[in-house]
């Protein structure tokens, strides 16, 4: 029993923090909001040199062979720096599904290129029903041998504008079926959405889009569960880093901002907000790592751990960024000041893969109520 980081994790955390402070400054975050691609290929290449896209990928496929807890340590730093771009899409929507359910040939074809930063992936899961359960998958999948053809509309697909491949969930006669679909074909039409965080999400129309079958015909929903569990915890890790930074910026501001002749941080009304913020951030961090550990060590109650982590983290981090805005007063509402960057991004991640209501319901069901 030990809730501290390992030496390797400390090193990874410090290296990532130093790297991102230099390579992913606030200005880049702002520029990418307006950028058509939404990411910096230069930064993407440097991240690959750090071994990050392939952090989880075994070294036999060109990766670094770290474990999922290590990845969550890195993602906390990504949340802190608000790293823009298709990192999570590629790791959770590409590397992990291929590692878990891909054939040997698919692993050899894709994993080394993901690790080297040469391929961008994303998961095309949700549809206009915006549901996260199996009934939400209505896109048609027609399987013929190792090939699968998709027809339907996917919505809220992250980073589809720059993805080389989509992992698509569709429905065949046998049930939910997955396929790896190249985006450079006429049957794939990507329309970008404008979102609260100015991240790049898209509507993806699939009109006879062809791809490789991933896993088995009809085995897609079961195969997706571990993918979604990891992805959900990854979003939690990002939220932990984001809310930690929002909290630190707010505390610093409370120490500097003077009203009535004293720093506002000397007022108990502000102090108690700050105490509540750190409680929410710390609570989010440990429940996230508990879920990550449960997945990493294949605990029997891992699904419950994931649901609890996202239910809690979604709301706790929202409380944090709301307090952050209140502590900053009027200046925090301006576009020029940095705190709003965190506020808007928190909402995206809060809603991704189910908000607190969604996961709380699943917790209630597992508790037997």
């Amino acid at each position, binding site marked *: *029993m*030990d*809730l*501290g*980081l*390992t030496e390797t994790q400390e090193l990874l955390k410090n290296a990532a923090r130093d790297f991102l402070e230099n390579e992913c400054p606030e200005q880049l975050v702002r520029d990418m909001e307006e950028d058509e691609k939404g990411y910096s290929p230069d930064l993407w290449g440097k991240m690959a040199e750090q071994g990050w896209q392939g952090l989880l990928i075994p070294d036999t496929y060109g990766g670094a062979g770290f474990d999922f*807890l290590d990845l969550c340590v890195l993602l906390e730093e990504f949340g802190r720096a608000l790293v823009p771009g298709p990192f999570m899409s590629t790791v959770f929507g590409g590397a992990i599904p291929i590692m878990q359910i891909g054939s040997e040939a698919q692993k050899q074809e894709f994993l080394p290129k993901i690790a080297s930063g040469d391929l961008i992936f994303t998961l095309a899961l949700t549809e206009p029903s915006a549901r996260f359960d199996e009934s939400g998958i209505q896109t048609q999948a027609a399987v013929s041998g190792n090939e699968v053809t998709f027809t339907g509309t996917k919505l809220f697909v992250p980073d589809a504008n720059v993805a080389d491949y989509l992992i698509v969930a569709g429905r065949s006669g046998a049930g939910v079926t997955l396929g790896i679909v190249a985006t450079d074909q006429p049957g794939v039409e990507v329309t970008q959405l404008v979102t609260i965080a100015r991240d790049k999400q898209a509507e993806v129309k699939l009109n006879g889009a062809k791809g490789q079958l991933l896993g088995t015909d009809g085995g897609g929903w079961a195969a997706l569960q571990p993918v979604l569990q990891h992805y959900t915890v990854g979003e939690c890790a990002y939220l932990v880093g984001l809310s930690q930074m929002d909290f630190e910026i707010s*505390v610093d501001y*409370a*120490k500097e901002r003077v009203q009535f002749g*004293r*720093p506002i*941080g*000397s*007022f*108990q009304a*502000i*102090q*108690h907000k*700050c*105490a*509540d913020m*750190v*409680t929410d951030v*710390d*609570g989010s961090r*440990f*429940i996230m*790592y*508990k879920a*990550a*550990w*449960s997945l990493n*060590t294949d605990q029997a109650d891992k699904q419950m751990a994931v649901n*609890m982590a996202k*239910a*809690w983290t979604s709301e706790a981090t929202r409380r944090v960024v709301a307090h952050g805005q209140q502590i900053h007063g009027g200046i925090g509402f301006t576009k020029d000041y940095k705190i709003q960057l965190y506020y808007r991004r928190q909402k995206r991640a809060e809603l991704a893969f189910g908000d607190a*209501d969604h996961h*709380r*319901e699943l*917790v*209630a069901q597992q*508790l*037997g*109520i």
Partner: protein
Amino acid sequence: MDWADSPEQAAFRTDVRQFIKDRLPGRYRDMKDTGSENAGWQADRKSSNPEANQAAKDWATALAERGWIAPHWPKEYGGAGLTTIEQFIYNQEMAEAQAPPVGGMGVSLLGPTLIVHGNPEQKAEHLPKILSGEVAWAQGYSEPGAGSDLASLQTRAVKDGDEYVINGQKIWTSGAQYSDWLFALVRTDPEAPKHRGISFLMMDRTTPGLTVRPLTDMGWAQPFNETFFEDVRVPAKNLVGEENRGWYVGMTLLDFERSGISGAISHRRNIRDLIEFAKTDEGKARSRLGEFTTLRHEVADRHIETEILFNFAFRIVSMQARGLVPNYEASMNKMYGSELAQRVSRTGTKVFGLFSTIWQDQQKWGEQNAPYSAMGSRFTHLYVRTVPLTILSGSNEIQRNVIATRGLGLPRG
């Protein structure tokens, strides 16, 4: 990060579990949890019920054999010298089994304080009697005029030859009615700055002039007392540490497991029992869980929040095991745990609707109401009994101040 026991920790856990299975007296094993104050060791040893007396004695004997009355004390003083992680596992298993701790304030506070600040005579006289369960201690810190601002305490001690003469009043002296000795903070120098005129004194509770009067709380229980001092003469050799340094003696950060794990365990048990009860026929007739999804979600939230509290406890013990001293983290546990206790009880009362108005208390009022109570009125009792948790041991406002100033470095107001 690792939530699992190491092989050594797992072996120790098995050992503690087996010990409880073999030695916990039936009285504590079969106790029905109604959310009322359960009979504890302190009350049982002074009880007029012979079965209670025997249980208190047997349990103390069993624990003493292993040095587990004071598992956190060093071996040389008769403790078990357990590491912080072992203490944590011990506390966890005892709380899971709802086994009553033995020794009260003597074990938790006075003993460790004497080990750090006491002289050899004081240690020799008092520590063995704490460990044998012969002497129970109560703490006299708070006063009617000194709550959150404890250092403003006014109970006066004047040196007269080789005695101190004490006059004044303490309040919230928990368990003083069952105790044999008190330790108290008293003012020995009214001219000095408030923290520097206080001394730490021990006194026999039967000393003439010392009166203990139980206070009845809003739940008809008597957990604490008012204690009055009228020319109470205490030998000067009962001063612990130096005169006028008592504040620092009393506030010594004692080096033992302080995760507060037992709170998390009891909240989780209450939620689990609530859910199990609601599945029974009787439970279905009382519970509104089937009616309102909002209530189901509220129960789910409480369960998730206990997970947060467990992790806060694990964090503290992990820090201690790594040789770090918890700072704001301990305040956070107290704050979060006490507020969660109130939320759990509130959620429980919501689940049972009107049935939550029933206050069943067999000891006081017999079987009256029993057919209409839900879970023996457990959540109704808790709804009242958790009220002081956000007030005692440093109110939650004080805890938030501590987190903000000591933890986050915000300027003091």
